[in-house]
């Protein structure tokens, strides 16, 4: 299905008016028949981006797979808040094994479905940024390299939230976490070279890689649906703000997810077989400060003497993303 470009001016909560669309263009969540794969009653914090992202992603996958989906979850917030014994929010077959093995467990499920001739059953692995970019990285890369028929969803909230907000390899520079305190000469997380797992996924040459954000839920659904049309290893990296870890208001989750995109800090793109095929253009470019300022994890940058140099470095990174992923509409901006 070709997604129709919507161009109404969105205000307030930025929710997309489904009513204005043709029925087949409406979002999965707009449908009363949606599966509610991750049902209400779970224990996520108010405004949890991960809960929102997972609900949209899995429901979209369910629609695409005619409800034949099995999910394998890494340890982390999503696992803990969704299955407090003896309750579960999952309406789909779901397994949690360990923190670092979701991709491999999914390979096993996939193999079992293959021998049993259940090619209609689709397998999803999912985890947080820690479970994906750090401890689960070996299993993830192995799954990619074998091109196993698994869709991996990474819910990136940029730290180990479930254990109390410690730094992961997805934590951005300068961010304060419990292990990168806002202390000393260089407060917050160090500036490294970063570990861009979407790009690393692309380097495996797998058929489909995308980034998505909970501010663009229709885009997230479309990317999941697109991924489900493909066989082989697929990877979607979703930015999911965490009010608790980021020190942000629960009602700002969508706003922050949008600002991360509009600053260029978190580029949205799709790639096939190692090549970027499209990127979502920024419609209103904003300076990084607007994104950083509402988050307490960056509060030390805006003290009595603002950290001008640090802010410039972060702005630089955003600008580089904009050039690299062609995030500005070139016709309008040269």
């Amino acid at each position, binding site marked *: 299905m070709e997604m129709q470009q919507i161009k109404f001016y969105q205000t307030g909560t930025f929710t997309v008016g489904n009513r204005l669309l043709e029925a087949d263009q409406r979002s999965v969540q707009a449908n009363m028949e949606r599966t509610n794969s991750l049902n209400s009653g779970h224990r996520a914090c108010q405004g949890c981006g991960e809960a929102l992202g997972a609900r949209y992603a899995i429901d979209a996958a369910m629609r695409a797979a005619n409800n034949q989906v099995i999910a394998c979850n890494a340890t982390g917030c999503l696992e803990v808040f969704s299955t407090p014994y003896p309750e579960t929010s999952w309406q789909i077959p779901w397994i949690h094994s*360990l923190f670092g093995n979701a991709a491999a467990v999914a390979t096993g499920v996939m193999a079992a479905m293959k021998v049993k001739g259940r090619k209609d059953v689709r397998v999803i692995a999912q985890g947080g940024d820690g479970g994906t970019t750090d401890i689960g990285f070996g299993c993830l890369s192995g799954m990619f390299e074998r091109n196993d028929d698994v869709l991996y969803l990474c819910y990136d909230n940029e730290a180990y939230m479930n254990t109390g907000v410690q730094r992961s390899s997805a934590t951005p520079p300068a961010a304060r976490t419990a292990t990168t305190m806002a202390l000393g000469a260089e407060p917050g997380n160090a500036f490294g070279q970063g570990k861009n797992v979407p790009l690393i996924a692309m380097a495996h040459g797998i058929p489909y890689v995308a980034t998505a954000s909970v501010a663009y839920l229709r885009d997230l659904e479309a990317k999941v649906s697109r991924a489900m049309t493909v066989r082989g290893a697929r990877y979607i990296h979703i930015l999911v703000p965490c009010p608790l870890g980021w020190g942000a208001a629960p009602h700002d989750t969508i706003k922050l997810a949008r600002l991360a995109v509009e600053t260029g800090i978190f580029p949205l793109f799709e790639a096939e077989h190692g090549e970027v095929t499209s990127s979502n253009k920024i419609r209103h470019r904003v300076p990084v400060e607007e994104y950083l300022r509402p988050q307490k994890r960056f509060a030390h940058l805006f003290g009595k003497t603002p950290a001008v140099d640090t802010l410039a470095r972060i702005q630089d990174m955003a600008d580089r993303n904009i050039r690299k992923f062609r995030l500005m509409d070139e016709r309008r901006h040269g």
Partner: protein
Amino acid sequence: MLKQCEGSHAIAESVALCRPEVICAYPITPQTHIVEGLGEMVKAGDLENCEFINVESEFAALSVAIGASAAGARTYTATASQGLLFMAEAVYNAAGLGLPIVMTIGNRAIGAPINIWNDHTDSMSMRDAGWIQLYAETNQEAADLHIQAFRLAEELSMPVMVCVDGFILTHAYERLDIPTQEQVDAYLPPFEPRQVLDPREPVSIGAMVGPEAFMEVRYLAHHKQMRALELIPQLSAEFGQVFGRESGGLMRTYRAEDAKTIVVALGSVNGTIKDVVDELRDDGYAIGAAAILSFRPFPSDALHELLSHAKRLVVIEKSLAVGIGGIVSHNLRMALSGISLHAYTVVAGLGGRPITKASLRSLFERALRDELEPLTFLDLNQAAIDRELAREQAQRRSGPSAENILRDLGVR
């Protein structure tokens, strides 16, 4: 069918006859020939309906096995030594989830110092992970135990490790009886999982469990192993009926009925022990032996019964619990409650050190005279140790001791 073949090859053929549906493989000596053999059968199309997956680590191997087993596939993998430690977290997880995976351990020492040869340190490190642990005495038994292992695992919904002495068994060529497909099919029914990931009947597996139920979940695992104490002899007896030979069980005794001295050990060393028992019997000593085939569950009652009339117990251990002595002996203490005898722990064969008949004979003779220390290290080169201790005494930076000892002994 009788066949001259390598132990690993016989294990691979037995596993293949069990119609595994998913096999995960990662290389480590001395387990490699088993998975290579299976891989070849899958690739050649001789083993149908089976996914053979080459993974990037042992942690992934067992994790893939966990996923496959939870999705209802009969699943097999094999490892040894460092590989077993590398998958340790998944070893506990597979058991905690109650997944009937069968895994061969080609028993090998654990480094440092790195060493590829046989002892039992690897599987002993996982003895309390919740897996059933069977130790094969011979290659025929190793092959046979795998067939019993799938049956046992699936009946209890619990994973089983079949421990096979690295090189001594895995790489030995001998005449072995490979059963027919009809025999195995008659013995091992298709896998009917207790829990399965299926979109037609969604379940959540692996939820977080707090103090209100964790004890009960763990207790159930113990309960199942206690059930296995009954099931293992039954399955072994049934195996005897279908295949016409004795294999498996909880424990096997040798000339133990009237024995006042009993030697207990696990695995292939029992062959040598029996030869020495024969020699000493010829010389008039009332000595016998017992091979523990099932270390988990531990056959405490059977051992208690066996040892209740003995005067002496000699435990031959292929692993060392550093700082205390022997693991098997330690486990045996529970079974000795109310029995008074001289118990000797003998640590032997670490890192592949040969356990010879001559050494065992002189060891047992000393035991028969009650001249043995409670903890003995068989064939230990005390002089080399003393020289290294002296070097350490002489200078602070004495260097890496493993390398020092090799140089001292002139091993190059």
